């Protein structure tokens, strides 16, 4: 799994995020992807080879492993990270669509006007590529949808992990009596304590990300409500005075 490629892709969408979105991205990559790759994959590496049952019956270990571990934690977390990162691409798709429309408009308007400075047109296209769209209107709705999807995927995968493994703790011993096991055999899981520690860590990081998403949602709603109020003359004076004071403070 090429995590650096995903990181590069998501960094590109960072320009149009809020600050909370940027914090969320850092938390995602440092506390979840890095920990997954650097640590968790070595802990779960020998999960099947070291799963031993107290029997010599061939096939019993395979069957019991499959019964108690239908999907490995590592795969669930990788899927969760992939699903949780992709709604951000909705926003970048919308931004490229907007840029494409504006570019077409600029080129069309230059086509109509016969006397036009081509340099001016190039400059306009350059600013189009480098500009940062304010999060308003349709972009606001797209961003909101992406946040809602992120939270749904996050919650969905955590719930799935909790249901499949009956909690976040890894047992040391499981008892299994599937055919072809001759009777109720004890099967021993490898490194259960270390796995429990990492499961709890990843669940905590996941909850932190959900909290960040909720905060970002609240921030967006507050910003939208703020924007709906028309700016009064008083507010215009205030922002001017504030600007003066900042400059005074700088010098």
């Amino acid at each position, binding site marked *: 799994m090429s*995590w*650096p490629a995903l*990181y590069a892709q998501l960094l590109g969408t960072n320009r149009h995020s809020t*600050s909370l979105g*940027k*914090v969320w991205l*850092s938390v995602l*990559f*440092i*506390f979840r*992807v*890095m*920990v997954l*790759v*650097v*640590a968790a*994959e*070595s*802990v779960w590496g*020998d999960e099947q080879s*070291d799963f*031993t*049952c*107290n*029997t010599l019956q061939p096939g019993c270990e395979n069957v019991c492993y499959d019964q108690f571990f239908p999907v490995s934690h590592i795969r669930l977390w990788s899927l969760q990270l992939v699903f949780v990162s992709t709604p951000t691409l909705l926003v970048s798709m919308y931004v490229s669509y907007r840029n494409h429309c504006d570019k077409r408009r600029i080129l069309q308007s230059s086509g109509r006007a016969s006397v036009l400075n081509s340099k001016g047109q190039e400059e306009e296209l350059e600013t189009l590529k480098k500009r940062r769209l304010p999060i308003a209107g349709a972009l606001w709705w797209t961003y909101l949808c992406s946040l809602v999807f992120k939270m749904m995927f996050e919650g969905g995968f955590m719930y799935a992990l909790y249901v499949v493994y009956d909690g976040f703790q890894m047992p*040391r*011993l499981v008892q299994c009596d599937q055919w072809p096991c001759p009777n109720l055999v*004890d*099967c*021993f*899981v*490898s*490194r*259960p*304590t*270390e796995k429990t*520690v*990492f499961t709890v*860590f990843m669940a905590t990081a996941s909850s932190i990300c959900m909290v960040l998403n909720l905060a970002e949602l609240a921030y967006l709603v507050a910003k939208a409500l703020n924007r709906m109020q028309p700016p009064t003359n*008083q507010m215009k*004076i*205030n*922002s*001017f*005075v*504030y*600007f*003066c*004071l*900042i*400059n*005074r*403070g700088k*010098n």
Partner: protein
Amino acid sequence: TPLAQPDEPDLESKMNWGTFYAVISGVNRHSTGIGRIWLSVIFIFRILVLVVAAESVWGDEKSGFTCNTQQPGCNSVCYDQFFPISHIRLWALQLILVSTPALLVAMHVAHRRHVDKKALKRSGRGSPKELEHIKNQKFQITGALWWTYMISIIFRLIFEVAFLYVFYLIYPDFKMVRLVKCDSYPCPNTVDCFVSRPTEKTIFTVFMLTVSGVCVLLNLAEVAYLIARACKRCMSRPEDEAKAAWITQRLSSYRQNEINQLIADHSLKSKLTVTKKSPTEQGERCSAF
């Protein structure tokens, strides 16, 4: 070749530590000299050693752990009892958590740049050259940035010491024992279990703990240096400059409704004229009054 297999996972993890390094070393511009030394120590003596050497020493920690019994499951259970978390994972988590407070500083710097850019655009002087200047501007470690930097160093210290303590709790002796005795179910009786490569593990444990201690000392030195610098700055500033700076700071921290109140009372004008000791250009900018 038989050596080809172990190289693959090393490359993957190297790639990710590499991305991590790129992210963290971006903060280097706004660090002190001691901060840069600390960063180099972290990357050369801890991350590099962890990836290149320690992971191959601990690679066969479970497969090489053998108990003197043929009872299936006894190996797993005894290994889990004596090694709840592997040293490697503890060190990797420690490095990740210890390096992240540096991002607080990066976030603060980004926020300052954003505010400056917005103010510049509002004043109508948003030429690309000026915006570039803001992007490459190196901020002095004063004021709010000093506090952010201080908090980030304190968090680093807290994480470093916390992990050292956790290490001490789980593995009270720095020495890795050669033999452990275990009698958890399903082991039939008290069996001898043998740890693989105990001496090599002891050497690396002592090395990593020493470098950890060195990093704690570097962080303490940085705290002392920052405090000394701040005190020096406080004392060397002349009296009236300090007063003007203090008044400016107080004015800057007024909230919006207080500004409204002052404007409504027409008393802000008189207060601004009192502080106008600086060159005329400041008066020009606020000439609306």
